[in-house]
């Protein structure tokens, strides 16, 4: 019995096991009970592309990292304080992800000779002293789980599978989390299989009780709730936030939502969620390929609906031609690219920011379009609404960039008041907009709104507005096919001016400047958390550094030049080999300091701190607050 409870302000727990061990599930559960408990949190699922790589090998290790805290945090944490390792491979693969001195809970039963060999261990790390820098707890999780489940009559092989809940129970005890939410979850999840309810409940309780009664642990910990703003909160991943944002955009515009798509990692959860929301009038089509997915979405847009397609890098390659058609037709279309590591199949389950230039330039011909980038999992909700607003208002395809980290990572989200969300006006053409020489009414499909340069959107079904559009160059105003050289030049300019003019309708770039900073760190997308973390650390050390984060990647906010020119040093951290920095240099003729990583993982805060620090404190001052990158 432990009566010694130590309060921590934050803790980073990493669950690691075989792909089949259910680590994503327990990580997700631990996240949810911590969220309900009121902690601030951020998560990083980290799993292989293979559904079940060979069991017990390093290739097949799946991990889930969760950072919980009693204060506002912005990243899933650099290095974990606690590692739960279900087998030797999980231990081997994750030692680089944890801090020196970390606590390691291992499933001792899995450290047999065969498993050690599969993981590449010549000797047992639990015995050979190689883990001397860590506090290691050896817990026979498999056998304790099987023993706990015995009364249910379940076969040992089946009972063993509940060991992930044993591990969850143990960690639940260790961090003084409530048990009720997990018991309720088990009942719901296995509702149709009473025996599994029993087995998993017993395993979970056994893990919890093991912590409490085994005289192994000298101490339990507590992380108090964070002081969040008042309101109702939920825990949300980026993919769900995108799906809900699209439904919101549908409600706000009155346009029925149509999703044409094809399954692809890591975007498929958007399809899964929307397929389940048919009571919002949502129609989803899992098409025969990426091209058909975006084609069907464009067909729905032509029909006057909110046409959306979702994908990741390889799918973007395939959709390029249809996006170009949407651009030429000047019809609304929302294209969501959940970026992953590339090129080619690349790293399907990992995260990267390497599609920005493709979004900008990845089509033939002069083909500018608006680009929006989400900066956190919850922000995906608002970014999806904004992408839809731009698409509908300006009659254009819009690319929304998220990434694998945002898509699968979760954070607490204070639910917005639905009535505060901005309305989107589809502004359909209602009647003829011109007259011919004899005064007869005419409809010109390319007669633009002078303010937005948007053309009329006239879905079929209205008499008098019948018109034909297509991929061939359009004559200005009439929209008829035209090969006229002057007209082509004019149309290229008009399309570009329409997109550039969006800058007038978006907010200025906000700069967080404590005053007197000479250094600006400017980022985009999912690096918001890591950059914010690094900037906070530098400020905590007395450094003055400004931060700005772009949501609108094309066009940029109107004040961006003025912002960039205000600072002596502009640092651009990106998870690619330098894409935003090229856009900034090309457009504004400035020099930038580029910080790039290509490990298909979020930036470690310490790494950014180390890269930014010398520009703030001077070149000698290279020591960061926690020793920098390991």
């Amino acid at each position, binding site marked *: 019995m432990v009566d010694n409870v130590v309060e921590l302000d934050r803790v980073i727990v990493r669950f690691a096991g075989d792909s089949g061990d259910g680590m994503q599930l327990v990580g997700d559960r631990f996240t*949810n009970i911590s*969220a*309900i408990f*009121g902690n601030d949190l951020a998560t990083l699922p980290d799993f292989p592309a293979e559904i079940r790589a060979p069991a017990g090998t390093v290739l097949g290790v799946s991990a889930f990292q969760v950072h919980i805290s009693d204060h506002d945090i912005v990243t899933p944490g650099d290095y974990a304080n606690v590692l739960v390792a279900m087998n030797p491979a999980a231990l081997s693969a994750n030692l680089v992800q944890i801090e020196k001195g970390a606590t390691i809970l291992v499933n001792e039963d899995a450290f047999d000779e065969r498993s050690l060999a599969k993981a590449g261990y010549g000797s047992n790390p639990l015995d050979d002293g190689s883990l001397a820098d860590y506090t290691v707890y050896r817990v026979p999780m498999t056998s304790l789980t099987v023993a706990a489940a015995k009364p249910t009559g379940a076969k040992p092989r089946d009972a063993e599978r509940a060991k992930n809940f044993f591990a969850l129970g143990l960690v639940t005890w260790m961090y003084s989390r409530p048990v009720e939410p997990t018991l309720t979850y088990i009942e719901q999840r296995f509702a149709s299989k009473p025996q599994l309810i029993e087995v998993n409940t017993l395993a979970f309780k056994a893990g919890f009780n093991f912590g409490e009664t085994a005289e192994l642990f000298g101490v339990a910990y507590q992380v108090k*709730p964070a002081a*969040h*703003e*008042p*309101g*109702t*909160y*939920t*825990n*949300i991943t980026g993919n769900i936030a995108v799906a*809900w944002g699209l*439904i919101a955009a549908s*409600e706000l515009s009155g346009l029925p939502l*149509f999703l*044409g798509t094809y399954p692809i990692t890591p975007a498929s959860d958007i399809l899964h969620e929307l397929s389940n*929301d*048919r*009571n*919002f*009038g949502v*129609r989803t*089509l899992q*098409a*025969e390929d990426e*091209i*058909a997915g975006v*084609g*069907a*979405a464009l*067909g*729905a*847009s*032509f*029909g*006057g609906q909110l*046409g959306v397609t979702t994908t990741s890098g390889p799918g973007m390659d395939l959709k390029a*031609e*249809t996006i170009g*058609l949407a651009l030429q037709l000047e019809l609304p279309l929302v294209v969501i690219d959940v970026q992953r590591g590339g090129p080619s199949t690349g790293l399907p389950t990992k995260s990267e920011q390497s599609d920005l230039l493709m979004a900008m330039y990845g089509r033939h011909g002069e083909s500018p379009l608006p680009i929006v980038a989400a900066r956190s999992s919850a922000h995906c909700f608002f970014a999806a609404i904004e992408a839809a607003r731009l698409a509908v208002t300006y009659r254009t395809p819009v690319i929304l960039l998220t990434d694998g980290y945002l898509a699968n990572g979760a954070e607490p989200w*204070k*639910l*917005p008041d*639905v009535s505060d969300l901005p309305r989107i006006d*589809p502004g*359909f053409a209602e009647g003829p907009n011109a007259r011919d020489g004899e005064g007869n009414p005419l409809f010109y499909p390319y007669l633009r709104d002078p303010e937005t340069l948007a053309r009329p959107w006239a*879905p*079929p*079904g209205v*008499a008098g507005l019948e018109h*034909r*559009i*297509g*991929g*061939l160059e359009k004559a200005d105003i009439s929209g*008829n*096919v035209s090969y006229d050289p002057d007209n082509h030049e004019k149309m290229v300019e008009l399309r570009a001016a329409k997109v550039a003019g969006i800058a007038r309708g978006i907010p200025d770039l906000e700069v967080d400047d404590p005053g007197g900073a000479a250094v600006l760190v400017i980022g985009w997308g999912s690096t918001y958390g890591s950059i914010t973390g690094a900037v906070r650390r530098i400020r905590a050390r007395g450094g003055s550094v400004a931060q700005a984060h772009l949501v609108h990647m094309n066009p940029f906010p109107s004040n961006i030049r003025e912002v960039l020119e205000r600072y002596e040093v502009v640092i651009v951290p990106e998870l690619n080999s330098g894409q935003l920095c090229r856009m900034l240099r090309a457009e504004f003729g400035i020099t930038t300091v580029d910080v790039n990583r290509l490990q298909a993982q979020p930036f470690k805060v310490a790494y950014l701190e180390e890269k930014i620090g010398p520009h703030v404190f001077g070149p000698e001052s290279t020591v960061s607050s926690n020793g920098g990158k390991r």
Partner: protein
Amino acid sequence: MTVTASESSVPVTTRKDWASDQEVRWCPGCGDYSILTAVQMLLPELGVRRENTVFISGIGCAARFPYYMSTYGMHSIHGRAPAIATGLALSRPDLDVWVVSGDGDALSIGGNHLIHTMRRNVNLTILLFNNQIYGLTKGQFSPTSELGKITKSTPFGSLDTPFNPVSLALGAEASFVARTHDMDRKHMMETFRRAHDHHGASLVEIYQNCNVFNDGAFEHITGKDVRASMLIPLEHGKPVRFGADGERGVVADGRGGVSIVNVADVGEDALIVHDEHAENPALAFALSRLATGPHSPTPIGVFRDVVRPEYGDQLADQVDAAIAKKGPGDLAALLSSGATWVVE
């Protein structure tokens, strides 16, 4: 805001009302002209409205078709018309959506979309202009060109076994499959009418002459003087026979196929009786294999016309069922549908 098709009584129209003001720019003598005329003459008879009618095409000579119609229309990208039309038909079941495509567009670059559209049974009327050649790119072989065809890209003869579009459609679970040709306006109009009235995906293969790059490809079977002996009209419920005096006919060959016989040799009772509505497409498929190219007697007309649930109807049913079960969508409720907690 949702746009829906207008519903008051349909005004009387003539062919002229369905033609746009754009000058038709196919080569003089092209078979496309007669297909355009057939469609424009048929539409006034269908009881449909211009504003509720949409033509969607891909790329190729045939794909210019929508520009010549005074309806809504889209000239899209190569091969993708069935996919785009699918999105339109599923989201706007109130519209009458036609797809105009060619052999290269539908069967080469767009083959995937064509087969999946048919198996899903989306409510589309697909007109496949088959001239067995690439016209717009000036004379390369197509997926329906005969084996060994000499073209600019196959100076030593093409090595590709051609597709038989009717066989392909039947294999792709199509619920309506027909064939007609550009030399017989009445037959075209009747076939298009049937295809339009079918609820689901309808595919009509139209033998169409390209007088520039593949002139006379079908003249051995569609020429006025040879038609009677070379075209085998398929009529539901009737024995399959042809010839000026109906002297030839089609019988089952006992090995899963069909063959041509002299009626006098076997008697009329031995002929197969055409059944468009047969659930099993085997006999329709056998008929589609009767001719390997437009050089021997070839069946035309409706091969298959069966009732199968239409995709858009089923999708709409799922939406209705979800609303009936969960109530109409409530955004605030959706956002708080996961675990939530309140911070005071």
